[in-house]
Structures are given as C-alpha cells and as structure tokens.
C-alpha cells in the first residue's frame, strides 16, 4: 500500500528495524477499511509507520472511537442543573447534595469474559473502579449486569460461575461492596455472555479532577503495574465478532487482574490527587498508553512525547508497538507538575508501587513516541482522538423479528393445567428465582455503609455524616428490546426508575451500556438507533440525563447476534435515610395495594419462555407519563411514611412480585391473601408483565391516604388483599381461577433453584 496514490507530502519516518511492512492485509488485520486507511494517510500527510498504524487501529476502533454510535449518542439528553460532568470524561459526575458529588459509570467486558470468564469479569471490575477513582472519587459500590445462555449447558455454567467469582474476587479484595445488579439466562446469549460492571464513587465537590495533560513541560509518569504483552489489540478485538476460530491465535493474550495491586493503586491515586502534585490522571485501559496519553493531550489541546525505553516492562524485548497497545491492568498515567516527580514517587513507594518518568507534555499538539531517542511515531493528537470516521448507517427492521412480534399468542393465554404448578415453575425459573447464589459470593457489607443489600429493588449506600443516601440499579429486559427496540429501551429505563422509587429514591441520572450485535448489519443498526431513541425519550420524561456509558458492539457468535441489550444503570438520591423502604412485606395484617393497572399483555414474558419456549409477541406497552406519575406518587407515599413495603412488578408478573414480597430474604416469609376481580384471562393477570405497576403494603389505617395520593397523581390504585401470617399460605383468587401454595414450597423453588442447577459440573470444553 506504500505505493498507493494520494497526496503524501511529508517525508515518511524511516521504518523501524524488524517491523512488518504495511500491506493491505496488514491494514485489514488492524480492523481499518481501505477508506479509513486513506484517512490515516491524509491525516499524517504521509505513509504511517507500523507503530503508527497500530495506534490508529486502536484509537479508531469502535471501542475507542465510537465509529458507529457517536452520531446516535448525540441524541441522548445529557444536561441538568445537577450534572457536574457529562459524557466525555472517565465517568459522569452529579451533585447529590450536602457538598457531595457522585461519580458513576458502567463498562462492558463481554468479549474478554467469553474467552476467559474469570479474568474477563475480574478485569472488567478493575477497569470500572479505575474510571471512578481517577475522577478523585472513592469507589463506594459496585453493581454487575450479566447475561448468559440457559443453565442446562455445562459451558454456560462454566461461564456463569467463572464470571461471578471473577466479579466477586476482584471487588471483595479491593473492598468495594456489591449492592446489586441483574442476571438473565436466555438462549439469546448463548456463546456471547454479557458482563457489564458499574461503579459508584463519592467525593466532596471540590475534589473532582479531570483527565487532561495540561501544563507544557510537566512530566508524564507511568504508575502501578508493569507493562506486559497482555491484551495487545484488545480494543480492536472488542470490536469484532467472535467465531469458532477466534480461539488461540487471533485472540489477544488474556489480561490477568491483580486486585491487590488495584487496592494499592486506588489508595495511592487518591493520595496523589489530594496532594496536589499532579494535574491529571488517567487509567491505561483499552488501548493502554496509546489512548490514555493521546486522550489526555487531546482534551488539554497539548501534545505529548513518550520514551518507550523508560516504560517499566514485565517482559524483555517488547517493541514500541507492543508497549503502546498493551492492556496490562492496574496501570495509570499521571501528569506530575515539573519538579515534583520525587513527591509522586514517594507517595507510590509508601504503597509499594512503582512510578517511572516516561515523557512530558509538549506544546506542539503531537503524539510523539520515541524509542531510545529515535522517533517511531509522530501523529497529530487531535485528529487521532477526535478524527475517527463516524458512520450513520441505514437501519432496517428484520422481517423475522417482525413476524415473531406479530405472532398470535391467544392460545397461550389459556393456562396449561394447574395455575399453581405454573406459578411454582416460574418462581424457580433462574430468571425469576432469588439471585443469592450470586450475591452471596460478593462482599456487600464492607465499608459499613450498605443500607439495602442486593436482593431488593435497588441497592442503597448511605453518605456518612449526612442524612442522605444513594440508590442504584441496573436494568434491561433484552427480550422486550429484541421484539421492539424502542419500547424495550423505554421499559428498561422505566423499570430502573421504578426500582429506585421503591426504595425511596428520586431517579437522578443514567449511565448506560449499549450491548448490541454487528452494526454493519442493517437490522442491528435499526435496533441500535431505535433503542437510543427510546432511551432518549425516557430520559426526557423522567428528567434523568445520561452522564456517560459504554458501547459494546459486535456481540455475535458465528453470525448470531445477542438480543439488543441497552443496560440502564440509574442512580437516585434519598434525602433521609430514615425513609428507606424495602420490598418485603413487614407486618401481618397490613393492606396490600396495587398501583397501576393489570392488562392482558403476555408478549416477551418469562411465562412464555418457561411454558412454551417462546420469545414472541409485542412487549408490554409503556406510557412514560403514567410511569412518571407512578414514580412521583410512590415517592410521596414513602416520604410521608405511609408504606411498610414497595416492590415493582417485572419478570413473572404480579404473582411473582407478590411472592417476592412475601418471601423476603427467607428469614420470615409471610402469607398473602389477595383477590383480583379484573376482567382478564388468568394467565395475563397473574403472569403478564404489564408495565407501570408497583405493589405496596401499609397499615390499614394508612390505606386511605395511599389511595388518595395515588388518585391525586391519577395513578390507578386499589386494595387487593392483605398480608397474612407466617403460618398462613399464599393465596391469590381470581374470578374463575386461583393460586394457592404453601410458603415452604415457594421458598424452595425460589431460593434453591440456581444453586441446584449449579450443582452439576461445569465444563470449559
């Protein structure tokens, strides 16, 4: 390609001895199209060197450059008076009151986890923690959002158990409590699991620091772990489909996480930031030194010059190309004020970590790389970080999916045999069943601030020294998004907001992770665009701006895409910890009130998947205005201390929501006596997943107030029954059918089912 025509004006850098020649094949292997390569040449004004090609390939990958999503992401609302830092930095930051700011973000590690579940998940958690503490915030909570195939496969069990222990071991060791997350099992994720991790960090408003390389002449230092050959080209890899032969050779060397070093790095970084000796700090994440250094220069409008021979390496003989693209974990790039490098080193020494001077901030806007003083790459920084070509593609809905959505489901509304049997089956389905097999592997109580642990609608962390608390949740039902992306994305945001108000929090802001297939396929691009549009309108309606997120595309195995899965990570603020509400019924004799209306919708439901092995029909309708009214009414009820419990209806419908409230954490299940006079077919009424519904309980003398507030907000509400005693059963009576189950049978189905499934061996093969 070095003979290609074009306007190549500057002299090319002499090729580095031992580097391969750049051929069209080499360019293609780097994930760049011929047009994109032309763009590289015109940015450079000459042929790039092999090292430069590697740098462009990483920075212009989907993962770093957002080629296919950037234009769509501009559609999301990002502003509100409480937003301190919107998208573009390592994490979003919002004001949460009393002088505190909350940094939060979600990240995916899907591809690495498909190859090596334990390390993939562990390093995913490590990366998101670094994104938070590089903002100056101390990480205070982690959530994890996971998707796998069905648990009857040994391989899926292997992936699932590896991912859970990877998430757990990393966060546990660093000492960050897990406060929630979600998991779904569906054949739509077979072969391509989803592993998204979210982190929340707290700081005083004035402690905020950003990742920019400011101050010409300042020194760039590499801090933390040494650089090895791990994950070279991870960013490019994360932007490709997996296929059967993605094994071995084409895969980057697995990145191994070291949470112990991360813990030291966390403490050292916060100390560095507090000391004032540095002006910027950034994680060396995807695309390693390349992206951290060039982005810091890009943001500050400066340049950087780095000497590869000064980078502490773990292996001998590493080339500049390898050092620049390595994704070794637990490393930071720090900009130290000129003359204060010794102070940086002293702080790191206390934490038994290394710091090496590897370069300096320049004023020429170049990203320049030296090897023993010889220039091996010299690229204009701004076009490198901002000039990635972006695409707006054509989106067309898949005819197959249209047909699934249009499928007539009426025969499934007629129950197959005994409703109680279906009910117990559904309670034991891994998608509904208790997730405690997962979160018992997580430390949820370290830092002594967890007020609501995993197992409720949302996790809650108090802010010490104030009356405030932060709630967080992650949500997305991929089946709904698959069946109708716009509605599905709205539902994801609506469910997240419902989960927050159920604990008493005002939904405040969103981070999101767009997990999709290959956007070059029109039907996938359609899903992506529709989902972003749905999310945008939900954000407007709920006044929850998007402050950041992550895009993970190409989630396909052998051409089969995952369900489109835009995971919503939503945070909310609780003004008074004394009002925190939980999902479990509290007192025998309390009234049970249903807010929202039952419908005859059954499309995309867990009931259909469990009883008919079907993912079909239209997803339930969602009315954003009604959702907003519901949120406001529940918050008002909670603030007026009317409620004993609140729990939203999601997978498994009203019957399962009531069961979860009855069973609680299993310590002291309470009976339920409910009767429903809806003019609906029993299956839809019990197991349909109609949106906009929350089940609350309250002392009988408060019921009138609850109903009054609901009507004030025009939220349908009615008393449907009452909480019975621990020795009573669980009874739901409909006009012409009923469920009647003993609590211990329910508890067995609900609490033991995932553990029982995981007792069969897991096989990696």
């Amino acid at each position, binding site marked *: 390609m070095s003979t290609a025509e074009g306007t190549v004006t500057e002299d090319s850098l002499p090729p580095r001895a031992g580097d391969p020649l750049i051929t069209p094949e080499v360019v293609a292997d780097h994930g760049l199209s011929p047009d994109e390569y032309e763009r590289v040449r015109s940015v450079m004004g000459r042929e790039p060197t092999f090292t430069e090609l590697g740098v462009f390939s990483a920075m212009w990958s989907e993962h770093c450059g957002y080629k296919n999503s950037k234009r769509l992401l501009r559609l999301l609302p990002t502003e509100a008076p409480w937003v301190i830092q919107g998208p573009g930095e390592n994490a979003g930051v919002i004001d949460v009151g009393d002088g505190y700011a909350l940094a939060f973000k979600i990240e995916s590690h899907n591809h690495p986890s498909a190859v090596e579940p334990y390390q993939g998940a562990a390093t995913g958690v490590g990366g998101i923690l670094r994104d938070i503490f590089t903002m100056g915030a101390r990480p205070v909570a982690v959530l994890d959002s996971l998707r796998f195939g069905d648990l009857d496969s040994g391989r899926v069990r292997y992936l699932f158990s590896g991912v859970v222990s990877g998430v757990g071991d990393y966060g546990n060791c660093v000492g960050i409590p897990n406060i929630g997350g979600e998991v779904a099992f569906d054949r739509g994720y077979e072969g391509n699991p989803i592993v998204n991790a979210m982190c929340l960090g707290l700081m005083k408003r004035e402690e905020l620091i950003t990742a920019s390389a400011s101050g010409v002449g300042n020194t760039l230092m590499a801090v933390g772990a040494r650089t090895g050959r791990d994950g070279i080209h991870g960013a490019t890899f994360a932007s490709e489909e997996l296929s059967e032969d993605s094994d071995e050779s084409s895969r980057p*060397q*697995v990145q191994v996480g070291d949470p112990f*070093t991360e813990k030291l790095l966390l403490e050292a970084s916060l100390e560095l930031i507090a000391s004032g000796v540095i002006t910027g700090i950034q994680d060396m994440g995807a695309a390693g030194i390349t992206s951290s250094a060039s982005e810091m220069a890009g943001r500050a409008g400066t340049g950087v010059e780095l000497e590869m021979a000064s980078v502490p390496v773990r292996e001998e003989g590493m080339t500049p190309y390898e050092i620049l693209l390595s994704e070794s974990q637990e490393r930071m790039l720090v900009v130290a004020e000129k003359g204060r490098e010794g102070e940086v080193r002293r702080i790191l020494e206390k934490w038994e970590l290394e710091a090496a001077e590897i370069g300096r901030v320049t004023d020429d806007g170049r990203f320049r790389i030296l090897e023993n003083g010889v220039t091996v790459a010299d690229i204009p920084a701004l076009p490198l970080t901002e000039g990635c070509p972006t695409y707006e593609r054509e989106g067309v809905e898949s005819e197959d999916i249209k047909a699934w959505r249009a499928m007539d489901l009426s025969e499934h509304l007629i129950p197959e045999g005994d409703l109680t049997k279906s009910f117990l089956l559904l309670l034991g389905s891994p998608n509904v069943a208790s997730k405690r097999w997962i979160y018992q592997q997580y430390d949820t109580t370290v830092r002594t601030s967890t007020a609501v642990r995993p197992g409720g609608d949302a996790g809650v962390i108090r802010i010490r020294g104030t009356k405030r608390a932060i709630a967080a949740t992650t949500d997305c039902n991929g089946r709904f998004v698959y069946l109708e992306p716009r509605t599905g994305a709205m539902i994801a945001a609506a469910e997240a907001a419902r989960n927050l108000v159920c604990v008493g929090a005002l939904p405040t802001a969103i981070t999101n992770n767009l997990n999709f297939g290959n956007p070059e396929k029109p039907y996938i691009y359609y899903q992506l665009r529709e989902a972003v549009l749905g999310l945008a309108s939900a954000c407007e309606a709920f006044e929850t701006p998007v402050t950041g997120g992550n895009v993970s595309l190409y989630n396909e195995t052998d051409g089969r895409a995952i369900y489109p899965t835009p995971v919503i990570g939503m945070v909310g603020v609780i003004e008074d910890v004394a009002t925190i509400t939980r999902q479990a019924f509290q007192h025998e004799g309390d009234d049970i009130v249903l807010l929202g209306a039952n419908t005859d919708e059954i499309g995309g439901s867990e009931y259909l998947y469990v009883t008919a092995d079907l993912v079909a029909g239209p997803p339930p309708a969602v009315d954003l205005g009604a959702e907003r009214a519901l949120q406001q009414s529940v918050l008002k009820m909670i603030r007026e201390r009317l409620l004993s419990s609140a729990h939203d209806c999601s997978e498994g419908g009203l019957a399962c929501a009531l069961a979860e409230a009855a069973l609680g954490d299993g310590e002291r299940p309470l009976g339920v006596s409910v009767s429903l006079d809806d003019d609906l077919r029993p299956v839809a009424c019990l197991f349909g997943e109609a949106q906009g519904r929350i089940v609350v309980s309250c002392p009988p003398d408060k019921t009138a107030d609850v109903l009054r507030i609901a009507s004030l907000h025009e939220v349908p509400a009615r008393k449907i029954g009452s909480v019975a005693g621990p020795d009573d059963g669980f009874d739901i009576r409909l006009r012409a059918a009923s469920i009647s189950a003993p609590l211990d049978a329910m508890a067995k189905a609900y609490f033991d089912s995932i553990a029982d499934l995981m007792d069969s061996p897991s096989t*990696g*093969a």
Partner: protein
Amino acid sequence: MTRYSLEIRIKPRPGLLDPEGKAIHHALHSLGWGEVDEVRVGKVLYLDLDADSEAAAAEAATAMCRKLLANPVTEDFEVAVTGALEGAGS
C-alpha cells in the same frame, strides 16, 4: 487392571501475569532472599486411577485436563505417572 498414581501439574502460561507469584517473590525479597528470581505458582493434583496400562492412565489424565482441570486459555499442564500397584483395581 492396575492402579496408577498420577501427578498433574497445572501452571500459568508463560507471559501471563502471575500476581500470586509476584507477591510471594516480593515477600521473599523483603525477608532477605534477594537471590530468588521469578516465582510462579501453579497447582498440583495427586490422583489414583485404575487403568490397563501406564499409557492409558496418562491418556485419561490428559483428557481430564482438557475437559475440566486446566484452563486452556491461561494454563499449561503436565501429567506424570508416579507409581503403579498391580492388581489393585477396584
């Protein structure tokens, strides 16, 4: 049938970070063993197995490593037959 004793060693692949080895190396240095170079940590499994021949025993163990015991992405393994007890099969 003979009962064979096997030793299976499972070791992190070269080039991969071995945080445990690193921490042990660091600790040995602080305790004064500066002459120790790299440390890498693996697992060793001891198991007894009935098989028709030594080769069959080793083959079975290799299959177990492939299927369950070793992680092909991060680990290498080595199988050694360390003993045989004739006629001891169950």
